[in-house]
């Protein structure tokens, strides 16, 4: 890679991303493939093993759960999805609430850097976001098969960083 490309990359990252002293405070996730209370409990226990999780509240009838995260914790959304998979089930949807301490101006393919990862906004119109923002995660491990198919063609990673998550509003 030529040096000017690296510099350009860094510049682009700085320009296109926004970092703030903020964090994910909670998430709601739907779980596919389960119908029994024992299975729901297994999912809850698997999520509780994560060190950044403060509390889990499962909804048996609607097969979903609300997860609250510890203050100041570095939340790893991929680990959260993996916890559901490890319990033997799949994520139907994963929406995480991000608490921002400033205004975030987003537009289509805007890259938001947080905690070493990038969050690329897909199919969004330009908006100013503040306070609590719900990130809807897009990915094979975050959506059920049918829903993911609808998004598949729109996912072209443009952000820098060790990992990129695709999100929408």
């Amino acid at each position, binding site marked *: 890679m030529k040096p000017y490309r690296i510099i350009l990359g860094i510049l682009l990252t700085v320009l296109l991303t926004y970092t703030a002293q903020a964090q994910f405070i909670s998430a709601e996730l739907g779980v596919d493939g389960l119908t029994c209370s024992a299975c729901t409990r297994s999912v809850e226990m698997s999520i509780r093993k994560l060190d950044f999780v403060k509390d889990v509240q499962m909804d048996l009838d609607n097969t979903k759960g609300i997860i609250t995260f510890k203050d100041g914790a570095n939340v790893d959304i991929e680990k959260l999805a993996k916890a559901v998979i490890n319990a033997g089930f799949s994520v139907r949807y994963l929406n995480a609430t991000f608490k921002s301490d400033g205004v975030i101006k987003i537009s289509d393919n805007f890259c938001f850097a947080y905690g070493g990862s990038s969050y690329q906004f897909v199919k969004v119109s330009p908006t100013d976001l503040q306070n609590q*923002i719900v990130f809807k995660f897009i990915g094979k491990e975050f959506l059920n098969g049918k829903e993911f198919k609808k998004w598949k063609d729109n996912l072209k990673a443009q952000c820098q960083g060790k990992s990129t998550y695709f999100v929408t509003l």
Partner: protein
Amino acid sequence: MKYYVIILASLLYFNSTAQELFPLAEPASSVPKGVLGFRGMGQFYQEFSQTRKMFAIRALYGVTSKLSVEVTASGSNHHDTLLPNNLLYHTHTASGMNVYSANAVPLGLPFPFLFAGFNFYAKYRIFSHDDEKSHFRIALFADYSTVKAAHDEAEPELLDDSPGYEVGFIATKLVDRLAISLTTGYINSSYFSEYQWQYIWPAQTTILQYGNALDYSLSIGYRFFPNKYSGDYSQNNFNIYMEFTGKWYGGATVSVNDVVASIHTPLLEEGYYIDANPGIQWIINSNSRVDLSVGYHILNKSYDHFYPIYNLGFQSYLFLKKMKPNYKLHTPMPAPEQQAN
């Protein structure tokens, strides 16, 4: 027979909204990763004046999200310490009828309770299709048994009677409250060898090679109670089951001092059968389960056991890291101050 059809039809009729924690069969689903489970099993049937008992204890572990392993230790009073003297001719028909022949082993003899051995089982989920409140899964399994018992019938039984290995697959479909699972496996049997000297003169080495078998089962489960979850893990759950189990096994081969002997008893010949096992299950605290099922013959009979055969089970999961689940569910969702959409 018609009762089973009625039960089966009623199960299918309640297609509203069951469970795959079958008392006898394994589902295609895995043990959650990193979770250790324990299962205690008891099997009972009456052989005239004797109550035959089998007890087993099993440890289950979820190695990965797809791979589960199990180790089972078992023991029973099904067999004597030695093979019958008249192995090639003996009968002790399990037909439930009082049939004696000149060569019969008297039925209902008291046998000591003996440790049988260990059984190692692994299951790998190769396919999963999950949807909201439903799934379809396929798993491959392998089972290896080191059991050593003076089991004197052709039919192999890897859990507590005979050594060997089994490979097969499981397909499980779950829709809301109903679960249906099909298991098929091929059992490659090993043998039991005995140097017979106590009652036989001159002493001889007898090797009993058990038949290989096709193992099959169809299990249906339905969540009977509750109709709707109260939103509390401590709520009791009851599931009802119907499991059809059976084997199609080849004949045994007996060799005496390395010479193949001719067999004169149906117990050592090939056969097949189907049992129907209605069962009920109580799920406690969404973590432990108590199973009870009773087996009846519907097509032929197994020489391996008498009927009815009662199976009792207790299983519980241990989540190794000390954690308490939130028993109260259904709390309102946190309302974000601003939710852009």
